[in-house]
Every structure is written in structure tokens, then in C-alpha cells.
């Protein structure tokens, strides 16, 4: 039986993996979202409201939370079409902050005082969800849809000119990414049984981005690797006491300097699995 301390870390890895995946899905179409903390927050609050105020069981609450966030994601996806690159990223940052500040003033879910009373879930439950979604993404990566998403990422104009509906693809990616982030949020809420708007701000959004970029931004498993890194490395650095955060910063820069695609990429995966062809 693992100690509660490690169980907690393990849970955090599962939750962060989903957050990183949510950024990965949207990034696959060439859009950088710095606001997925907002979708996580929507998921957390919707799921929590359903379990706390309406006494729903957790699983349907998570599913509805995912759906609600997907709708919001699609809505966000439309104006996002007009912005490119860093301006899109900044707009999503603004969106994330707006969601956070919305929940600061929204009294039915506690406002700045936070929301509590959710039923607690087990680590296995978290990993059933995390595992299932990771597997789903891994399967999706081998689909034609994923190739179309990559085409939009690589050359949007050419993608249009081979008949791909880039509008639907980009908006759909936002919807799907938002849904995954919402599940992440719902799981987070029921793991910590207390949430407040500050949990879902820019810090969270950038953590998701950090995880996928470090872990490997071109493969779904990169989300898992990145989550492991971001959760475990600060723990291993505890022996540095007051300087562990700075050490983490240094390590972060070093990884980016030496391997900018992140730790995992397709070539490495093929080598590790002794495969020669895709």
C-alpha cells in the first residue's frame, strides 16, 4: 500500500496529464492556448455544483462538465479564428483570467471564499479517467482526423487547398481540448474537495503548457512525461530547501536549450519500441 503522500503525487500526475493533453489537442492545430486553466475551472465548478448542490454521482457530473466546457470551447474557437500566433495566445490568456474572475464574483459557487463539500474520489478513479483519455488520444493520433489537424498546423492555406475544412478543425480542437481540461478540473475538485478561483488562473494554464512542451509537444505521451516531470522533479529537489524553485527554473531552461521539441518525440518513441516504420 503506497503512502498517502505518494498517492497524492500520483493523483496530481494524472490530473496534470489531462491538463497537458488539453493544450496538446489544441496545439496540434497550430493554436497556442494560454487559457486552459479557464476550461479546467469551468469543469471543476460545473462538476462540483452538480455533486454538491444537486447530489449527482461524480461520473455523470464529469461528463456534463466536459460537455459544457466543450460548448464554451467551441464558442471561444470562433473569434479565435481571427487571431494568429501570439495574439491568439494572449486572447486565450484573457479568456482564462475572465473565467477566474467570473468565479470570483459568482456567489452560488462561493465566490472568493471557494466551494467545498464535494465527495472525495480515489486515485484509481482518477487514473481510470486519465488512462482512458490518454488511450483515446493515442488512438486519435493514428486517425485521419489527426493528420488533418497536423495539416492545419503545418500549413493552413495548403490544408484548405487540399479540401480540408480548417474552420471546423480548429474550432473542434478547441471544443475537444476544453472538454479534456474540464474533466481535469472535475477530477481536481473531487480530489482536493475544495476549490477556489485562484486554482484556475494563469499559473495553472502555463503549467499545462509547460508540461506538454517539456514532455514532448509533438506526441500525446509527452503530456504524461511532462506531468511526471512537473510533479516529481520539485519533490526530488526538496533537498535543496530554499533554492529548489530556482533549481527547477534552471533545469527548465536547460531542457529547453538542449532539446527544444521536448523529451519525447516520434523518432525517440520509434527507437524505444524498436519500430522502423510508422
Amino acid at each position, binding site marked *: 500500500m503506497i503512502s498517502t503522500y505518494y498517492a497524492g503525487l500520483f493523483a496530481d500526475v494524472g490530473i496534470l496529464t489531462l491538463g497537458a493533453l488539453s493544450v496538446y489537442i489544441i496545439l496540434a492545430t497550430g493554436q497556442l492556448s494560454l487559457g486552459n486553466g479557464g476550461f479546467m475551472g469551468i469543469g471543476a465548478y460545473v462538476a462540483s455544483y452538480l455533486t454538491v448542490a444537486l447530489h449527482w454521482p461524480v461520473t455523470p457530473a464529469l461528463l456534463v462538465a466536459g460537455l459544457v466546457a466543450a460548448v464554451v470551447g467551441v464558442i471561444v474557437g470562433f473569434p479565435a479564428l481571427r487571431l494568429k500566433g501570439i495574439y491568439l495566445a494572449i486572447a486565450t490568456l484573457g479568456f482564462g483570467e475572465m473565467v477566474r474572475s467570473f468565479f470570483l464574483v459568482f456567489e452560488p459557487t462561493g465566490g472568493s471564499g471557494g466551494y467545498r463539500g464535494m465527495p472525495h474520489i480515489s486515485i484509481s478513479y482518477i487514473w481510470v479517467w486519465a488512462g482512458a483519455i490518454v488511450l483515446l488520444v493515442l*488512438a*486519435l493520433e*493514428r*486517425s*485521419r*482526423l489527426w*493528420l*488533418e489537424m*497536423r*495539416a492545419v*498546423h*503545418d*500549413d493552413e*492555406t*495548403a*490544408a*484548405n*487547398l*487540399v*479540401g*480540408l*475544412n*480548417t474552420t471546423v478543425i480548429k474550432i473542434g480542437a478547441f471544443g475537444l481540448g476544453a472538454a479534456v481540461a474540464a474533466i481535469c478540473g472535475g477530477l481536481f475538485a473531487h480530489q482536493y474537495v475544495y476549490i477556489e478561483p485562484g486554482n484556475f488562473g494563469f499559473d495553472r494554464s502555463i503549467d499545462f503548457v509547460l508540461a506538454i512542451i517539456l514532455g514532448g509537444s*509533438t506526441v500525446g505521451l509527452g503530456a504524461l512525461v511532462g506531468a511526471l516531470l512537473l510533479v516529481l522533479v520539485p519533490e526530488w529537489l526538496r533537498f535543496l530547501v530554499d533554492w529548489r524553485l530556482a533549481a527547477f527554473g534552471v533545469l527548465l531552461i536547460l531542457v529547453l536549450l538542449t532539446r527544444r521539441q521536448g523529451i519525447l518525440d516520434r523518432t525517440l518513441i520509434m527507437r524505444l519500441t524498436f519500430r*522502423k*516504420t*510508422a
Partner: protein
Amino acid sequence: MTHLLTLDNVSKIFGGIRALSNVSLSVPPDRIVGVIGPNGAGKTTLFNVITGAYRATEGNVVFDGKEMTQWPSHRIMRAGIARTFQNIRLFGSMTVWEHLLVAQPHQGNMLRLVLPARFADPVAWRRAEEALDIFGLGAYRDTVARTLSYGLQRKVEMARALTTGPKLLMLDEPVAGMNHDEAEELRLLLLRLQGQGLSILLIEHDMPFVMRLCHQLYVLNFGSLLAEGTPAEVRSNPAVLDAYLGSETAC
């Protein structure tokens, strides 16, 4: 005979510049039509208007009986047009194989699209294998296309275009940078494709290539149609010679 593609008095104006003025042309089914003209004549603009990358300012584009002047690009392409580009536009992260899968039409239900292609979409898988064979790209199947030689990249681009199952293939300077043997190989391939029912519209500067291949030629100059006709007719048209060689007589 109804034409496959008809442009009726198409103009394209950018700010104050008339890139295309009242251009009318038509491509019959199963024919190879060429568009020639000096640099800057508006040939690529013409292609862009047909494929919806630009909207025509005036005039209509009718393809396969459908008026598609205002359609978005992806819808135009899905109606049966495919094109290659002057500067090759491949997908930077994709292997040759992936290029041959990604552009194929969506047959049937969504499920085929979202499940792993190997199992869920054997039709697409097979079509990609065929394209690989036709263009002799088997050895480069898992190579990232952008790392290949120029000639091979051109092949990938054309193979990708053909996987969309088009009725009309639009080629923008397909033999640029090719040596004689490669150009001849392409010419024979195009004739074979035309024989199988494909119509081809191409832009080219290589006169011998164009003269030997096309059934019909359109000559553009400064955005307007200068001449049209068979290669023999166009070749002896004084206005065309004038445009290419410049007027010898003093004004």
C-alpha cells in the same frame, strides 16, 4: 459539349491594380489546357481565383455545373479540383505516406475519420498504397517529405493532389527545375492520366513542353486574355510573339 470548368468574364482587382481583366476560358472534360504568358501576366492569380484563395471581383467560375465563385476554398477543392503550387507546399512535419492519406475525400461516416486509419479506413489505406506505387515513392514512404530532393518533393505534391480524386488537376509550373528526362516522364504521366478521364489545366513557361502536351492554350498578358487556340494557332499569332519578344518596331 458542356465544359468542365468555365470562367466567364472574371476580373480580380487588388486596390487599384487589375490583376485579371475580363478573362473567359473553359476547360473541356478529358482535355489538357495550358495557360501561358510572360511573368506577372496573372497566371497564378487566375489559379488562385479558381481555387477560391482569392475571390473574383467580377465574373463567374462554374465547375462541373456548379457556380462556385463565392465558395470557400475547401469546398471548391472537394468538388473535384486539385492543385500543385509554384513553390511546393508540403506539410512540414509529415512523411510521404502521411501526405497520401491526409487529402483524401471523406467517404461515408465520421467513424472512419476518428479511428486509427489502418483498421478503420482500408479504402483510404489502399488508395495511398496505389499512389505510392504509381509515383515510385515506396522507398521514401516514412521519410519526412520536406527532406527529399526537389524532384521527389514535386512527385509527393502531385501524388497528394491525385489522392483527392479530382476531375480537374491544376498544375502551376510543373516542370520548373526539371531536366529533359524528368519532364518527359511527367508529360507521359499526364497523358496517361488524361486518358483515364482527368482534365488538366496547367501554367508553364517551358514552351516545347506546353506545345507538345496541350490541346488548347490561353495566353495571358497584363491580366487580359491575349489569344486562345490550339498550340499551332497560338504559336503563329503575331500578338503573342509580340508579347513575348517585345515589339521590334519603333513607336
